[in-house]
């Protein structure tokens, strides 16, 4: 086989590192249960671990295969739908809420930053409130939003928006101010309008900052949607699933673990989508490649 080109080798290597580390993690997980968990029982064989590690019990740390096994089982007695099928549906539902909030939040964040960069007065007057808004815990705010907008998807979207706009605003204030002062002078020497300076210089110069913020917001918007689904009374998403499986934890802890796994997968997937968009938007700038 001819040697792979460097870029391809990089991806292979990265994939390999990921798989090896995952295997190691699972090994430690089951290793802990092997030396300090509850007894392992199959039909023909029983293993009694020599130690007692409290968090390695089947209740707090279910076997990996039990979690994956639960995915194949029906989500509840008397239905055909598997837990996996249910979680995929719920994950997509939650992702959609989060994505709408993410887009709206990003637009608001960019808009606010554009406003602040062009008006010191507005910046001084409003930025303290933007910061203060983020000190209010979402669990306190969510019921108010639901009270105002009803138990509708819109409430969940607003909560996701609320968590998205802040990182974008802060990063974009910085990003829109990032051009070299001489680049601004260059534009002035061409008698460029503020509009042109914004679209041809400030906006493209801010993109690396924007994407850093969007990667934070991608995961934050998912968290916002999940948290908002509870008070929002939305039955179809991961948030409700988590609340339900939480109440069933003692009888089936692996269901909650499976739901947590689904949350993680959605978050990572959304992050990767933003990352891909970033690579596309910033190609040709000659920046060093990075993993995140």
């Amino acid at each position: 086989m001819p040697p792979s080109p460097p870029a391809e080798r990089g991806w292979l290597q990265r994939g390999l590192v990921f798989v090896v580390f995952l295997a190691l993690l699972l090994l430690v997980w089951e290793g802990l249960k092997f030396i300090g968990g509850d007894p392992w029982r199959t039909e023909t064989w029983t293993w009694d671990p020599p130690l007692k590690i409290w968090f390695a019990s089947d209740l707090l740390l279910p076997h990996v295969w039990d979690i994956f096994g639960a995915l194949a089982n029906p989500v509840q007695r008397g239905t055909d739908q598997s837990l996996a099928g249910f979680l995929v549906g719920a994950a997509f539902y939650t992702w959609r809420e989060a994505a709408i909030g993410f887009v709206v939040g990003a637009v608001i964040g960019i808009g606010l930053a554009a406003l602040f960069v062009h008006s010191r007065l507005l910046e001084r007057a409003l930025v303290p409130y933007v910061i203060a808004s983020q000190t209010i815990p979402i669990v306190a705010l969510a019921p108010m939003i639901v009270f105002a907008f009803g138990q509708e998807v819109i409430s969940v979207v607003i909560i996701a928006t609320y968590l998205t706009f802040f990182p974008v605003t802060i990063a974009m204030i910085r990003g829109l101010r990032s051009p070299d002062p001489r680049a601004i002078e260059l534009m002035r020497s061409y008698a460029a309008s503020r509009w042109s300076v914004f679209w041809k210089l400030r906006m493209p110069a801010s993109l690396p900052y924007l994407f850093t913020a969007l990667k934070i917001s991608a995961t934050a918007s998912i968290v916002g949607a999940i948290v908002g689904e509870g008070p929002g009374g939305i039955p179809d998403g991961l948030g409700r699933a988590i609340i339900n499986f939480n109440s069933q934890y003692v009888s089936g802890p692996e269901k909650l673990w499976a739901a947590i796994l689904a949350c993680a997968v959605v978050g990572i997937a959304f992050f990767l989508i933003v990352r891909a968009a970033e690579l596309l938007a910033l190609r040709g700038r000659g920046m060093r490649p990075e993993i995140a």
Partner: protein
Amino acid sequence: MTDSAPPASVVRVRGLDKQFTAGAGAVTALSGIDLTIAAGEFVSLIGPSGCGKSTLLRLIGDLTPPTSGSVEVNGKPAHQARLGREYGMVFQAPVLFEWRTVEDNVKLPLELLGMDRSERDARAREMLGLVELGDFARHHPYQLSGGMQQRVAIARALALQPDILLMDEPFGALDEMTRERMNSEVLRIWRQTGTTVVFVTHSIPEAVFLSTRVVVMSARPGRITRVVDVPLPQPRNDETREDPRYFRVVTEVREALRAGGGLGEEAPLASEERVAAEGGIG
């Protein structure tokens, strides 16, 4: 951009003063500047750091307002000349937009002018040909050397076919070899385009090699102490650098600088270095 009867002088500076507010007080950057530059001249401004040579260039380009006095470009106030896009600007750093290809960087001023696409393409090709970077049109800035990047900046500055080209220590960051090559390059472009050039430098050989006149300045307050004519024949080339007359003019400029207190003394960080931060929002 050229009137039917072009004025003989492209730049007319009269009784110019410039002060910067620094903390509580004011620093006088320039005082009593009078300077007239004729069409087609190549004029260098030279002096110790803090003499206000970059500030003078920025005043000519209307990138900063004068405290008193007047700057006329093509017979109009500098402000109108800027709005009329009558000059091109080259800084010490290339200031290329890294998200644009080489040709798109050159097209930037043409887009701002509202020139249509086909005309833009043709002009950008022409300008890149002028700086001999035609093969690099689709490259991104980071793929070019410092000298090549500065040539792109020159092509961009010339894209609007300006009457006057303002260059602020454009080769200060380049190594000596590249700098000499760029000097010859600039002279060739100057001959080919007939543009008036105002060139800020702190290199005496560079100023003498390039210019038809060298304006010598001194610091605190910045003022013009002497104007030295450079009677070297055109076109100039590597032999010019070995011409005894060249050395005579270099000596003359050096002595003029020394007489103005410009040599052998390190000036403190001057207002002109701070100016870059003053740009603010366009």
